[in-house]
């Protein structure tokens, strides 16, 4: 694992992000169902995490090191299109399969399902449960003296769930320095602005008040993402990376528009989006 990232690598990662964004849009268009807004807001972070930071093995159990892998939980399971696109890129399955997304009989269920897709640690979709699952994994890894990290990816609307804060206290109480949580601060939820629906407020201060380390970043800046993850890995406390992001990032008419939370683009909209990304 490298601790520094070059200009050249950043360019490469950005190119991959473009491809992943296109795949996300094509999957959702093909399914005529899915969640583009929150998938596009988290994809740069998933890209850096999966391609540069996380210890993981797309061949799963076939790799003897599998038990020492870092764990990833997509707590905001509705961003499944983003997860599947980065998993396909990393070789968990063939990219052609992406077009089965949300279709009958597909391994790519609407929300991630560990029973049908290898590499998914646990099924998610119902918000507010991932961080607590992550605490359990982190405790288990510590019991077994396995030096791996547990990454949990949450939405900012998701932290309105009280169960998130039960888990935040759990991680701090048990000194789970092997947990790194992302909060995708795109500031929008289905019914509009997070501050209008239920003020999420100062997320950083909230986590700090609960005894966590925090790092606030631009969640679309590759270098900031990378540096934040490296720093979080060396934290002596559970660490929350508050990522300021743009819902629908990369597609002008989707950006900062809550209407694109759970809506599929039509043929024309897809073409327009793909043109923008080319």
């Amino acid at each position, binding site marked *: 694992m490298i601790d520094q990232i070059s200009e050249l690598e950043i360019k490469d990662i950005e190119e991959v992000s473009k491809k992943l964004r296109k795949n996300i849009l094509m999957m959702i268009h093909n399914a005529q169902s899915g969640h583009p807004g929150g998938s596009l807001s988290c994809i740069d972070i998933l890209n850096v995490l999966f391609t540069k930071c996380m210890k993981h093995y797309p061949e799963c159990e076939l790799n003897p090191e599998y038990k020492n892998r870092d*764990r990833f939980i997509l707590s905001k399971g509705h961003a499944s299109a983003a997860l599947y696109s980065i998993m396909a890129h990393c070789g968990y399955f063939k990219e052609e399969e992406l077009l089965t997304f949300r279709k009958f009989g597909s391994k790519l269920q609407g929300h991630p*399902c*560990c*029973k049908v897709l290898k590499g998914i*640690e*646990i*099924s998610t*979709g*119902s918000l*507010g*449960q991932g961080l*607590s*699952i*992550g*605490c*359990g*994994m*982190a*405790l*288990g*890894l510590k*019991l*077994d003296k*396995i030096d791996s990290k547990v990454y949990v990816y949450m939405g900012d609307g998701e932290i309105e769930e*009280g*169960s998130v804060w*039960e*888990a935040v*206290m*759990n991680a701090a*109480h*048990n000194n789970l320095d092997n947990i790194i949580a992302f909060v995708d601060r795109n500031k929008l939820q289905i019914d509009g602005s997070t501050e209008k629906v239920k003020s999420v407020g100062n997320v950083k201060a909230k986590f700090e008040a609960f005894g966590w380390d925090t790092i606030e970043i631009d969640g679309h800046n590759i270098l900031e993402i990378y540096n934040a993850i490296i720093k979080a890995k060396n934290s002596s406390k559970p660490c929350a990376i508050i990522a300021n992001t743009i819902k629908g990032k990369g597609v002008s008419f989707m950006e900062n528009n809550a209407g694109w939370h759970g809506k599929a683009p039509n043929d024309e909209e897809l073409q327009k989006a793909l043109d923008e990304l080319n």
Partner: protein
Amino acid sequence: MNREYKSVRSEYGKTLVELGKVNKDIVVLDADLSSSTQTKLFAKEFPERFFNVGISEQDLITTAAGLSCTGKIPFVSTFAMFASGRAWEQVRNTICYSNLNVKIAATHGGITVGEDGASHQALEDISLMRSIPNMTVIVPADAEETRQAIKFAAEFNGPVYIRISRSNLPDIFDSNYKFDYKKANIIKEGKDITLITNGETLVETIDCAKILSEKGIDAEIINVPVVKPLDNETIINSAKKTNRVITIENHSIIGGLGSAICELLSEKYPTKVTRIGTNDEFGQSGTAKELMAFYGLNAEKLAQKITGLIK
């Protein structure tokens, strides 16, 4: 009748300690009720494998889920109300959907919670747990059956819900008893009616059958510790024999054992069934004994009702 009453909860705690000694993967979680649930016995012996998550039942269930993902076998305890109610969706969407190896040993099920009153009396837990795919549901009737059910759960791969009573219960089974999760057991053979029960109402049903016998009614008693999966064969065979079934449970008549029996018989061998339990109502404060009498679940009240039913 002179009977020796045993704490089923402390039997649970002791069994956990036994299991913990032979299997280092056993971990135990509680939500600030470790004295009430008796998981404190395990906590004392294996502090590094005990996690008290505080008053956070949702976190309790999903933390156990995470531990099971790393190969641990978590036993999770709190009151039945909170394990099955507060955290239902965690149980459904995280434990059962992913078919995780988590054991929920919930204490204080049913009306016999007593003095704490309706807010703490889980009369719906079996219904709630039974309706979730992948879940196995067990309601043991005494200390021995509890011990064996816990040991079974530790060896079985998949989610299990075990309801452990708050009350001390008299011994019904001895160490010759063999708990088999695929089998209901016939406690007494009879030809006139079939009484189907489990948990705390088994001893009342046994005593009720004695009263009925004095009145010339020969009741068959079937103990169904495993509500799901149900032992269809034993139940259907008994229904064929007596053609009259009465279910008795320390639970609402909606969705529990009685409902499970009705679902089975209505499809496979339509038989008249009467469900006895709490009706569509909440409980109240009182001693366990007073409440069992008030809700018609003690031997005398059961005998009265059943005599009336089959006249």
